[in-house]
């Protein structure tokens, strides 16, 4: 927490940020002052809507106390994966990849887009969260070359497996079955990407020729990764891949799990 006594608002969009409001309140408490630069006041003209209404979709809140909320959590992750692979296939790097990798990324894009659109349709417009916006500068960095694309893919796929494995206990009946139909596909993707990186000499916590289900993602009881939603959200936030702020409003109901959370390596090797 800052102990400054002056807060400078440089741009009108700052007025909509939580941090700005928090700083306003803090300064009120310590007798500080707030300075608005000309750009802020200039935007007050009636012909200028920049900054004087909330920017679209700056935040999405997940309410995980219901199965609908858990499916929205899955929908959020699928949006992220689908957006990434769509950009991979459209990137300039894609054409330079081997036929094997082109097949893999085309498949992954097709499957993740299908997951995204399926969950959106199943949730119905009344219940589905908004479309998330990605942080394009993070994506652009990840899309720079083959190796960074593969690394980001591994991060997304392992995280997806961990998320679905942790979310299953909050679902029942048809919803549980549908999630089960998706998670094994995510696990297949994760194994494929890990196997490709294995062949490229990246071991990182697993022996050569074992990365597809390496000791870094399968524990000594032969069990895969598992993470609770709060942990997954935290990893998504620290990866800085979304411009939309993803928040958990209400937590999932209390359900016994399999024990301690076991996440994939963070950061991804």
């Amino acid at each position, binding site marked *: 927490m800052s102990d400054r006594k002056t807060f400078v608002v440089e741009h009108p969009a700052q007025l909509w940020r939580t941090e700005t409001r928090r700083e306003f309140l803090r300064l009120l408490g310590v007798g500080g002052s707030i300075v608005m630069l000309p750009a802020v006041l200039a935007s007050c003209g009636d012909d200028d809507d920049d900054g004087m209404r909330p920017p679209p979709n700056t935040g999405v809140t997940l309410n995980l106390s219901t199965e609908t909320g858990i499916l929205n959590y899955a929908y959020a992750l699928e949006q992220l994966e689908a957006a990434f692979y769509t950009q991979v296939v459209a990137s300039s790097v894609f054409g330079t990849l081997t036929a094997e990798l082109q097949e893999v990324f085309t498949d992954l894009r097709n499957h993740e887009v299908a997951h995204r659109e399926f969950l959106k349709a199943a949730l119905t417009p009344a219940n589905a969260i908004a479309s998330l916006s990605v942080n394009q500068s993070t994506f652009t960095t990840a899309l720079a070359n083959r190796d960074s694309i593969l690394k980001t893919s591994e991060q997304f796929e392992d995280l997806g497996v961990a998320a679905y494995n942790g979310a299953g206990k909050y679902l029942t009946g048809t919803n549980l079955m549908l999630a089960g139909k998706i998670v*094994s596909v995510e696990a297949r993707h994760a194994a494929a990407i890990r196997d490709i990186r294995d062949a490229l000499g990246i071991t990182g916590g697993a022996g050569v020729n074992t990365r597809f*289900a390496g000791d870094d993602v399968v524990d000594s009881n032969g*069990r895969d990764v*598992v993470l609770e939603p709060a942990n997954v959200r935290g990893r998504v936030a620290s990866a800085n891949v979304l411009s939309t702020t993803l928040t958990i409003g209400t937590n999932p109901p209390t359900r016994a799990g399999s024990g301690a959370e076991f996440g994939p390596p963070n950061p991804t090797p």
Partner: protein
Amino acid sequence: MQNTETILGAIDPEVAERLVTRREAIRQGASVSSTVAAGLAMASVPVALAALSKDAFAQTTTTVQDVLNFALMLEIFENEFYKAVLGTSSSTAQNTAFTTVRALVPAAARTSLGQIQKHEAQHVAFLLSAGAVNVLNLTADSFDFTGGRGAAPGPFLAATTDVAFLLLTAQAAEDTGVRAYKGQAPNLVSNTAVLENALRIHSVEARHAAKIRRMRRLLAGAPSTVRFSGTVSGGDASAAGATGTPPQAAVAALGLVYGAGTDAANFPNEANTTQGGIAIGNLPNLPTGFSTNSATEAFDEPLSRNDVRTIVQPFFKVTIP
């Protein structure tokens, strides 16, 4: 889609129903705890109800127990299969059966198969520690990995001499495991700790299946329907992507691995393209080139215990009840 049922709301009718059916069962000589028997004998509903609530819990535990026992049976089968392939079985006969093909498996592939076998052994140990029981007293010698039940060489005999066929067989075993665990998930909602463990084993089996697909494609001349992404493309026997001309009986067996279960509505063919009543191919925003196969690959399908039993029975010398 929302789960608004209270716990009591869900259990009460079940207990009431059981009270009636159990009373009939007791008349026919079924065993019951003495407290329940006393309660029923005295026609004391509160006593019988209270005791049956406990029995109802035990009943739920038994269902979870059935799933654990079933999973253990499959894991012992897989573990013993890979041990025989790798030459580490406790049965000399099983090791000897795979001598020819073992020498043909490249070292890198052998390491990967070793990692898979390690997980299957871990699954066996973990399920036993979780209370699973080896009901059939299975040992290394309980299996006939050619699929002939020990009577005569079965349709998968080529797995002992041909690497491509060996990997095809391994892929079918892993995909059967994935479908089996998926099919049991709804039976575990009463015990979410077991459910989560089962899901965590389920995704490891999927990783194995993906790796084996990739090995087949890279080493063993498998067709492009065997995806580099490790996913299941299409359904029925063609989803196996067999090379050469396998025996008719093997094709039929692979048809069961990738086909629909007896209850096709709940256990669809891997070729299924409709999920939760939604036709995947009709969804908006699908990319150019999105095919029927893409729709089948994006979702894996479950099988029932009976379906899985039909698939694996030929590899067991004993009859699976």
